[in-house]
């Protein structure tokens, strides 16, 4: 429950470090795009993007350490709806060639 925890706030330097980390990961994405890895190019790009999104959600959006159940519910439902978008779209893409 909400025991006035005022988020688990970190120092400014911590957020700066996360921000720099995000920039480094962006540079890595750009760099990786210039290396021909065949089918692994999109996999690497998506992997880096997922790490970046996780950092933003956990720290910049204060989800890590949040005491509210509601915050958790919002995050879970966001991912649930993303899963609906992906799975039902794939229900089309993966079965298009079936005859």
């Amino acid at each position: 429950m909400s025991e006035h925890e005022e988020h688990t706030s970190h120092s400014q330097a911590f957020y700066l470090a996360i921000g720099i980390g995000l920039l480094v990961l962006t540079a890595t994405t750009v760099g990786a795009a210039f290396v021909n890895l065949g089918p692994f190019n999109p996999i690497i790009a998506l992997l880096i993007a997922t790490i970046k999104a996780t950092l933003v959600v956990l720290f910049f959006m204060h989800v890590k350490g949040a005491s509210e159940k509601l915050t958790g519910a919002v995050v879970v439902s966001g991912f649930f709806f993303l899963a609906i978008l992906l799975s039902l779209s794939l229900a089309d893409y993966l079965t298009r060639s079936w005859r």
Partner: protein
Amino acid sequence: MASTVIPANQTLAPTPKLNYLNNGHTLKSWLLTTDHKRIALLYLISVTVFFFLGGFFAMLIRLELLTPQGDLMQADTYNKVFTMHGMIMVFFFLIPVVPAVLGNFLVPLMIGAKDLAFPRINLLSWYLYITAGTLFLHCMLTGGVDTGWTFYTPYSTVGSNTNVIEAGLAVFIAGFSSIFTGLNFIVTIHRMRAPGLTWDRLPLFIWANYATSLIMILGTPVIAITVVLVAVERLFHLGIFDPRLGGDPLLFQHLFWFYSHPAVYIMILPSMGVISELIACFARKRIFGYKFVALSSLAIAVFGFLVWAHHMFVAGISLYAAMIFSFLSFSVGVPSAVKVFNWTATLYKSSISYATPMLYAFGFIGLFTIGGLTGLMLATIGIDVHVTDTYFVVAHFHYVMVGGVLMGYLGGLHFWWPKISGRMYPESWAKLSALLVFVGFNLTFFPQFILGYVGMPRRYWQYPPEFQVLNVLSTAGSSVLAVGYLLPMIYLLWSLKYGPIAEANPWGAAGLEWQTTSPPPTFNFDETPVVTWEAYNYDEIPAPKQLEAPGAR
């Protein structure tokens, strides 16, 4: 409590009490207000402007279709006209209308709160809406768009040479306005309910707006991303939707309808909430199956996300996916039917009075049922293949969006007008206009079901002469409908000055919003109410005199 501003001119007749309308008369006091009721009025004015603009384009469409030849405008102009009509009506009228006007006004009042949780974000949402609207008007005046409101690729990315990016940007910004409204409602409903107002005592209008807010927050980002992708492909030729560049045009339709189908529920759910309030009040009875009606709103919000590809049955999606989506589309019919049957069951053996809001509620039930049932026909793949992109589809979604949403909105606007303005509207004029709207609506759109079924495609400016009779009927109906919409604007404005002063609770309605004065003070309640009763406790509330109409029993 924050200090209140003293009205500038106190020479007027003695106002009984300081309320939100006379608390500050300057333009600044309106444009920088954080009062949810004033923001609701700002929204009311702006959505009304867009409604009549969208209606103007609708009349141009109907005038062109009066004759089989393309004699009023060129094909290109016609494409732009129906695109403008669709975009304005969907993004700048139907999506914001009930949540941003009635919801903004009523959510805090109904739950016994002083304001929304984030009053400044609420004002920001209106400014974003105005920014988006201005951008769209600029786009319209500098040539417009011709992609249809759906922005379908590859036409929107490689075909059209109109202002697609500007229109997309307007939709993007308007989307954020709607996200802010949704966010505000969710936090307010969770956090700011009056003591004793538990979830199972909430008015159904609140449940409906809560479900709507969930869709706004979860769905709107997807349309925002989608229009950005269209812009990126148009500007930088990145292969996202264009098959020549390795993209997939159907990906656009998947992403677009993932939001835009639930967007239909953003439009209709709040209106359904309004109808629940109206029926309970004018039948003087608790809504039958309260919990089912409340939960059906949430069910519609969730199921609404599972059905989008029924817009794509003929677009080339896999047959297996089509079967899944067809089945899921039928499932949305269940919670919708729960609502319709429960409203009807509420009416059974109740004490009905036929005031104007109730006439609109009856109109809603009839028209929404036709719209919903033809939706089931369209969810059937076999029928959908036959009538895709015909006037049958046009008629179907107008029955839901105009017959449903607008009926609910007008019913709600009349019902809460005494609370909003502190004045009563002229009842006989209002009844006349409700009748005109109902007759005009059916005359406009019922012939379109037949036209579509016999094969008239949508989005053409010419048609074979054998379709003319039904098109003339439709155009005639649209003129009646236009009068039906103009009348309320005239007499509601008239009532602001000349209408009889409204009491706090002229309808003898349940609900916290009726326990404060009409119009309410800036912070809604002098004392925070404590709720010790169930919603719609009409057996404990005496009916006012004018509601005890002859023939009511």
